């Protein structure tokens, strides 16, 4: 129960953050990625602000013997820079550049009552399941 409350609260802060930063405005995101056009630099402060908090806070958090409400930290175990990592990230970037949504903003933008995020989320799930099926063969 406590863990579920944290998940709700954490999700709420995340959605609020995506709203304030206007990452849910895909034209703004595309404007940030358009370095050769009228470059909109404000989104640098989003990643900058978020990463500054995590770099500092995670140092302390990861020194805890275990998370406050859980037995252990669920962290990625892979360490090597392999082909799926690089090719996958490259494909993700191409998709991001085409639609202006990465997963978080695409989902949060569902509240804007517009068809674009709905189509994005459906296509995202289809793409994810396609890779899953291909990689399990």
């Amino acid at each position, binding site marked *: 129960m406590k*863990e579920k409350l944290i998940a709700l609260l*954490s999700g*709420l802060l995340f*959605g*609020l*953050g*995506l*709203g*304030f*930063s206007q*990452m849910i*405005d895909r034209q*703004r995101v595309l404007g940030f*990625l358009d*370095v050769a056009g009228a470059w909109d630099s*404000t989104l*640098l*402060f*989003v*990643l900058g*602000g978020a990463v*500054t*908090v995590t770099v500092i806070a995670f140092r302390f*958090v990861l020194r*805890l013997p275990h*998370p*406050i*409400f*859980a*037995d252990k930290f669920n*962290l990625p175990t892979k360490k090597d*820079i392999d082909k*799926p990592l*690089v090719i*996958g*990230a*490259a494909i*993700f*970037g*191409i*998709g*991001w550049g*085409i639609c202006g*949504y990465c*997963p*978080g903003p*695409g*989902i*949060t933008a*569902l509240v*804007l009552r*517009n068809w*674009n995020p709905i189509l994005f989320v459906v*296509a995202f*799930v*289809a793409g*994810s399941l*396609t*890779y899953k099926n291909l*990689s399990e063969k």
Partner: protein
Amino acid sequence: MANVNWVTALIGGVLIGLSATLLLAFNGRIAGISGIVNGAIAFSKQEVWRWIFILGMLLGGILYEYGLASQPTPTATLTPWAMIIGGFLVGFGTRMGSGCTSGHGVCGLGRLSMRSLVAVITFMMTAILTVFVVRHLLQLSI
């Protein structure tokens, strides 16, 4: 276009950082949205928290847009093919590359992960390149 200056962008970023910190400190989980969604659509019982997180994101979006926003977020004209092709590639690529802007960007860089740094540099480069091709070479407005 909404007049968002660097202060609101920074506030937004800090909120996202706090969200990731909260989830890691209390639940030991990484706030990577692509990973949370991929786990959620597996529909297993231990993973209910992922749906609750997604519900929280939507509530946060509603609270911002219909409560706190100084002006409505602009919604661009409908571009169905950009959403379908772009969304598919985002889903495929983030599953293959084990993360997106939040998992590799906000959390991975926070853990000083070399894999995440490589991923972030790679997807930023291909995203910038794609926008360059779409906007300046093909001159499409999507």
